[in-house]
């Protein structure tokens, strides 16, 4: 076995020595020596000049760009290293409290978790964006808000152009005129080469982070970069191997600053990109760059960028196999998105067909249209286990029918959604002039991104769903159908966290159907819960920004928080549950069988979760599966996993994350973290270094279902 594995590894190309060294330096943090801990003071001048919030945000972008030292390593071809660590405040705390009075921020405040229209920005160039702003300013003269916004936007554009100019001069001074030429042309002008496009993207994207934004998506990279590469290849300016290496260097550069990005834990940074799928006109968008990106992801083998692939049942098996090769190294991506389910779902939710065909993911899995979505895709979570638990307790105490319990669960979900909706209508989105430059129509309309785009929906996670359905299935089977469990005893046992009721707990766990075995007894209840959740989101109406509430199947951190609580969390926690789960035990992450449930295998899991009506739940949230690394040994095995991805499409599931895990390796990493510094695992929407995770997350990962052991 091991000889076959080694042969395969030898057969796959690896990073060039230049990039291997660059990767080593970044993982070792050698570039941290360029970082300054000084805080840029923006607040003082903003106060002095009496700037409003929009102009303050622009000033932040400008001063952060100015404070950036220029770093050019001798072996670099895609430049930019962040040297300013901290993002300064724009207001004093008491001023901020005043601004926020009666309103709420989403998470940290600044706009996050959306995706720019990178294709538009690159194809126009920043000078054209500047001209668009100037034209709008002339047209909208007298509209104070528009004037302020457009002046702010121009300030940010000029700041980025100046940063590029400083990089170009420094490159010239170092005798690197090849790089100086690249930076002189782009991002000011549309890129004349693949190299210029990558450099412009690197710079414009990095400035989003410098401006305090986070979870900044990269969108449909193979779609918007391919025209530049195609032209280079056609004109003979570049051979494929050189293009591949540039792309890999760009990927490595995206990992330079990950430790400075805000997130739950390092790795949760939303630098996600999308590959493949239809073009806006409905034609097949797969191009040679699609496979190159998968190859680059495998060779670079770092946590950024996080790669997503759109698939249909006609997606070439060779491309799927390339994706499986990437899965095999254990980064937890690519994440697979089923166009056959997602596009009609988005259309049903009100998206124009050509926009739906252009979808990407925001930070993790939530579907969003590049440049057109100012959506807050994770505004909150509905706790399905809390809904089912409260319904079960109340229904059993009142001696009601099982059907009545289901209706109670639906009413509970409706109440949770209504609470989230009410709170979310107070949402305050701060102005974002630089991000607005990168979006469709903000400059043209003279309106900041924070006032909305074409799509303005909010997404709500439906978390802990499998546990909730299993709890209902256990009650229906054991209390109602078979009458083997007395309702009073069940409630007492739940209150006592099954102390002295181990036999009952075993019966709940083993004596009733569970989600994940293609058994309608449990799967039907999962479908029912999501239908009621979708009804609740429909009923919540407008979100105050011209959007609606999109139900989803993800959980993010809620699989932990809904079990153990979390500071400032609005969502209810729940103790021991009727599926036999003990108080405090984690729920399943996004869509997966409940953690302690034994299931037959991955096909049954696909069939269980394929029953959901994804036309009504289009916020996203992946079916998450761990495959044993033995499933990736040999060409034949890789092809089978590729066929499994095709089966995922056929099953009617929406989105899937495959991870490969070797439990022995993970246990060894817990004992000897120093030997496994580079071990990467998928956590939920993101991948992180295993040894940098808290122990409870490490244990949750070790406890996940692993298929094919």
């Amino acid at each position, binding site marked *: 076995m091991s000889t076959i594995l080694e042969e395969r590894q030898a057969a796959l190309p690896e990073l060039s020595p230049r990039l291997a060294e660059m990767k080593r330096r970044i993982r070792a943090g050698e570039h941290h020596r360029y970082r300054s801990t000084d805080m840029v003071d923006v607040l003082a001048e903003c106060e002095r000049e009496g700037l409003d919030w929009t102009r303050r945000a622009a000033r932040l972008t400008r001063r952060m760009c100015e404070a950036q030292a220029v770093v050019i390593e001798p072996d670099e071809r895609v430049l930019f290293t962040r040297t300013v660590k901290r993002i300064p405040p724009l207001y004093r705390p008491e001023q901020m409290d005043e601004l926020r009075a009666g309103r709420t921020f989403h998470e940290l405040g600044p706009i996050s978790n959306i995706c720019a229209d990178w294709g538009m920005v690159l194809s126009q160039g920043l000078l054209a964006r500047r001209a668009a702003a100037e034209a709008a300013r002339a047209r909208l003269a007298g509209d104070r808000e528009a004037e302020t916004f457009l002046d702010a936007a121009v300030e940010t554009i000029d700041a980025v152009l100046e940063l590029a100019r400083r990089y170009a001069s420094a490159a010239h001074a170092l005798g690197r005129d090849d790089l100086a030429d690249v930076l002189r042309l782009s991002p000011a002008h549309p890129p004349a080469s693949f190299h210029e496009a990558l450099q412009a993207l690197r710079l414009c994207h990095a400035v989003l982070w410098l401006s305090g934004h986070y979870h900044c998506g990269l969108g449909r990279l193979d779609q918007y970069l391919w025209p530049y590469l195609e032209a280079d290849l056609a004109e003979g300016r570049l051979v494929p191997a050189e293009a591949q290496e540039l792309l890999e260097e760009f990927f490595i550069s995206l990992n330079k600053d990950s430790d400075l990005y805000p997130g739950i834990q390092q790795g949760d940074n939303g630098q996600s990109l999308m590959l493949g799928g239809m073009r806006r006109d409905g034609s097949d968008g797969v191009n040679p760059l699609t496979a190159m990106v998968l190859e680059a992801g495998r060779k670079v083998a770092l946590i950024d960028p996080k790669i997503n692939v759109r698939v249909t049942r006609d997606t070439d098996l060779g491309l799927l196999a390339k994706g499986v090769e990437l899965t095999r190294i254990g980064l937890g991506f690519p994440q697979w998105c089923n166009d056959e389910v997602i596009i009609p779902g988005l259309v049903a939710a009100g998206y124009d067909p050509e926009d739906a065909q252009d979808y990407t993911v925001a930070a993790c899995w939530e579907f969003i249209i590049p440049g057109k979505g100012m959506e807050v895709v994770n505004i909150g979570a509905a706790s399905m286990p809390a809904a089912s638990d409260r319904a079960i307790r109340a229904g059993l105490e009142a001696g009601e029918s099982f059907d009545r319990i289901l209706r109670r669960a639906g009413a509970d979900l409706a109440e949770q959604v209504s609470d989230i909706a009410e709170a979310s209508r107070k949402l305050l989105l701060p102005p974002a002039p630089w991000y607005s430059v990168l979006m469709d129509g903000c400059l043209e309309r003279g309106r900041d991104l924070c006032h909305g785009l074409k799509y303005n929906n909010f997404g709500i996670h439906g978390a802990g769903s499998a546990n909730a359905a299993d709890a209902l299935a256990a009650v229906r089977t054991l209390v109602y159908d078979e009458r083997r469990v007395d309702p009073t005893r069940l409630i007492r046992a739940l209150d006592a966290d099954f102390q002295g009721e181990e036999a009952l707990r075993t019966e709940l766990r083993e004596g009733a159907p569970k989600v994940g075995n293609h058994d309608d007894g449990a799967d039907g209840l999962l479908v029912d819960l999501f239908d009621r959740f979708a009804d609740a989101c429909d009923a919540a109406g407008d979100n105050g920004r011209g959007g609606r509430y999109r139900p989803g199947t993800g959980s993010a951190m809620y699989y932990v928080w809904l079990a153990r609580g979390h500071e400032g969390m609005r969502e209810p926690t729940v103790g021991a549950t009727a599926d036999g789960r003990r108080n405090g035990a984690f729920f399943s992450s996004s869509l997966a069988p409940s953690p302690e449930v034994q299931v037959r*295998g991955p*096909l049954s899991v696909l*069939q269980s979760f394929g029953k959901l009506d994804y036309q009504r739940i289009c916020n996203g949230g992946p079916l998450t599966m761990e495959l044993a690394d033995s499933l990736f040994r040999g060409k034949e095995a890789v*092809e*089978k996993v590729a066929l*499994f991805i095709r089966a995922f499409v*056929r*099953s009617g599931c929406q989105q899937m994350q495959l991870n490969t895990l070797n439990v022995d390796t993970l246990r060894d990493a817990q004992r000897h973290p120093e030997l496994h510094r580079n071990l990467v695992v998928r956590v939920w929407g993101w991948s992180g270094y295993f040894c940098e995770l808290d122990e409870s997350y490490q244990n949750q990962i070790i406890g996940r279902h692993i298929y094919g052991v």
Partner: protein
Amino acid sequence: MIYMINRANASAAESAKGGAGSTTAATGLEGMGQGMRASVTGVVFDIRELTIHDGPGLRTTVFLKGCPLSCAWCHNPEGRSREPQVLRGPNGDRVAGRSYQADELATLLNRQAPLLIDGGVSFSGGEPLMQAAFLEAVLERLEGLHVVLGTSGFAPAESFLRVVRRCDLVLFDLKLMDPEAHRRWTGVDNRVILDNLQRLADLGLPYLIRVPLAPGVTDTEANLRFIALHVRELPGRPRVELLPYNRAAGGKYAACGLEWRPDYDETVPCRTDLAPFHELQVDARVL
């Protein structure tokens, strides 16, 4: 890259030789296939989805319990006994073996058919032909699924033929060509096996030869050469697949209450020598 699943037309493949060779005297087959004929209940010790080495494409494999052989390298000791048994593992007990009605198992598999278009179902064991009547009843009830049978070939001719005629591909094990060595290492005579192989070959169904490699036992140059010589003469000259020895073979013995004591040296790397096959123009590969 794309798997072509061609459903064999079993009835067209039937040959006149189908019923030949039903003598079972003194072969160790006494009792096999008897008493089960009327039964449509079988014992299954595992159903695995997304199996890798049990045939082309995406497959679900059913492991039928019970095996008349006792191969020294057997890595499924819970597949030997026909009866359900308790496995005592480090993480608690588990019963291996569950009875299924033929209808029940067929329904379970038919429900997966929409996802198994690029593959199908496989039957392995144990020795699936130990439960030939049950297996036949299940196969009768499958709807549009490509069927692979993995077998040692050790079964009465009649039940062997009845089952394989309902399959689309047979993975036929050849372990040792020397009759004496075969008895020593598997506990049974290989005469029956070679006769069934000939019957299978004469049927004209797609089939492959599988050779499980155990170091110093089945992987010897002489054994591989004899297998190559034998396969070369078979109608259709099937492909040979060598299955490298897996050091995890002994992993489940303790849980079965058995001692793992192979009387060969499993630390010796097994030879995966394709030369004896290629020299005789026999298609062969290592899995």
